[in-house]
């Protein structure tokens, strides 16, 4: 049975506390928001990060991109996702009237600091349905190990 990247079970009081935090400062309200690369809430693309025993999983919600034009780099323990998204109505013929332009467009770049135990030699990236998933392996010694009791 698979879980989804969306679900984070949170008690109601925690959610209220988070909401209060979110209102009191213009930053993403999360435990890791104090990281030096933590971005302002509303950055494109939104990113979810998860961890399994074997890997760090980064999900970037960036619809409407050409998979070949997405740059994913790992340098000195920082995973960087960058690219460009074009406006859908740009370049349309004259006489086109625009009523709503909420979709973000332009060049983007987001960075995620990887933990020390990340194996930057084992990075995979897949783009599907507008979601970029980057999977970074963890080193063997970082995985949970079972110690036999003598």
């Amino acid at each position, binding site marked *: *049975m*698979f*879980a*989804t*990247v*969306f*679900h*984070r079970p949170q008690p109601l009081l925690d959610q209220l506390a988070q909401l209060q935090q979110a209102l009191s400062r213009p930053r*993403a309200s*999360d*435990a*890791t928001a104090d990281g030096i690369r933590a971005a302002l*809430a509303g950055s494109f*693309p*939104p*990113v*979810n*990060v*998860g*961890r*399994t*025993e074997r*890997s760090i*999983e980064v*999900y970037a*919600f*960036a*619809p*409407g*991109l050409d998979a070949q034009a997405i740059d994913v780099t790992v340098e000195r323990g920082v995973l960087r996702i960058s690219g460009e998204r074009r*406006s*859908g*109505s740009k370049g*349309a*013929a004259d*006489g*086109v*009237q*625009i*009523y*709503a*332009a*909420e*979709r*973000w467009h332009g060049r983007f770049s987001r960075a995620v600091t990887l933990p020390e135990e990340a194996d930057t030699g084992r990075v995979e990236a897949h*783009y599907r*349905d*507008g*979601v970029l*998933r980057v999977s970074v392996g963890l080193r063997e010694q970082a995985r949970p190990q079972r110690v036999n009791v003598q």
Partner: protein
Amino acid sequence: MMTEQTQLSRADNEPATSGTSVPTSASRKPSSAHSAAGANAVERPIERAVEPAVEIFEDAGGITVLADMPGVPREGLNVQLDGDTLVIEGEAAVLAPEGMRGLWAEINVPRYRRAFTLGRELDVARIEAGVKDGVLTLRIPKQAHAQPRRIAVSTT
């Protein structure tokens, strides 16, 4: 541009006057096929949904709507017409590996929903919808009769 076509379902019982791109089949249920994504939704009495960011523009032939719905596959998309209200809904199905713990989440709700009211000059029978790379594209053509017409003035 639209590589994958999806079905539109009509909630009203009016027969389509022209065109055949809107079948009158029953509406699809978006959540049933995605039990993984919907597993948590089942317990919630009200399904939370976020409004997708849209881009709407009009040319001589009609109106185009683009909506960002990352993670929504073609099967998770539901476009429904109820009277003159057009509702777009999408259920994201982004699977995570087993045992994954969330460390950071900027997207928490796997569902998108937004409604628009359409004008009478639009030809709802010929709406086309497609989704590619998480972007829903709707094309709503204008009625053919929306053309200038001269009115004869009679004397009594």
